[in-house]
């Protein structure tokens, strides 16, 4: 029961975070100063999210082949598409798993 309360409150709160700044914007509002740095939000945010996802396995030691897969994905992504990059990284992981099981 309390789990549902938590999830519902968290959901309502999350919508509030999304909407509160948009709600108070009136028709005559000036563009926010944040527009100058808006191009920086995505790189910082995605890098932060990515680092969090990589740090967890690094800490509990389950990173394994991710250590090779991550740089592979990064390098492939500089030249080719995102999906290709992810596939190459996953290829490294699957290959490493296969090698691990064969040995």
């Amino acid at each position, binding site marked *: 029961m309390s789990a549902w309360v938590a999830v519902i409150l968290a959901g309502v*709160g999350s919508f509030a975070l999304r909407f509160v700044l*948009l709600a108070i914007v009136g028709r005559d509002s000036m563009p926010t100063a944040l527009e100058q740095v808006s191009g920086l939000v995505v790189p910082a945010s995605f890098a932060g999210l990515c680092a969090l996802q*990589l740090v967890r396995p690094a800490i509990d030691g389950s990173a394994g082949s991710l250590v090779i897969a991550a740089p592979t994905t990064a390098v492939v992504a500089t030249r080719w598409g995102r999906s290709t990059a992810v596939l190459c990284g996953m290829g490294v992981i699957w290959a490493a798993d296969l090698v691990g099981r064969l040995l």
Partner: protein
Amino acid sequence: MHLSATPARSDVHRLDATGSARRVASSRTDVRAELLAGARAMLPWLAGVMPFGFLIGVTTTTNGRSAVFGLATGLGIYSGSAQLTALQLLASGAGVATVVMSVLVLNARLLIYASSMTGHWHDTSLRFRALAGYLLVDPSFAEAARRYRERPAGAHWFYLGTGATLWIAWQASIVGGALGGALVPPGARLDAVIPLFLLAEVVGVVRDRATVAAAFVGGVVAVCSVGVPMHGGLLVAITVGILAGAAVQRVWT
């Protein structure tokens, strides 16, 4: 401003209270084209996003919760990292306050996203802003930021198309994971798709010195801030990353 009795034939003008003519939206085909363009723009993201949603669905049932519960996190919290954290916290017996606080701190970046969009959405209806805000999350924000910067005309519909596509795919993947998780072989390593996809995204959006600085500093600070209570490290990392990028902008332009 002089009020014209006959509006121009090619445009539809509505005169608002101040007397200035505002061009309202366009023909049906424009709207449809923009909606579809938005949907198409989201498709490449789904390859990385859907495994994440699937994983959340799987985690939900692994933790003994129903598919409906997992879907509820998707409908409300609507953010992968926050949903996963909430599920993990609940599984470890955390209380309501801890779960809610952690989700809100993790999702605080949405305030930054919304703040970035206020300039683009300030002349839309409250209803649009409510819907647009609800659909705002990392991939839809990334697409919106790009589109509004490149071509603001028609961008509202583009955004709705892109946001709705993401939303539908996300909820579907959660339900899929909750119901069909047992069918996926553990060797598929879906958990690895998420960091790899995010990494590919970072490489994709980094364009110049400022964005490199923002990404690099954001990543480093996130790693260093792992110990910050209530998962506040992400917000700290994003803020410091933006500041670093802004500093580079100032020094190098």
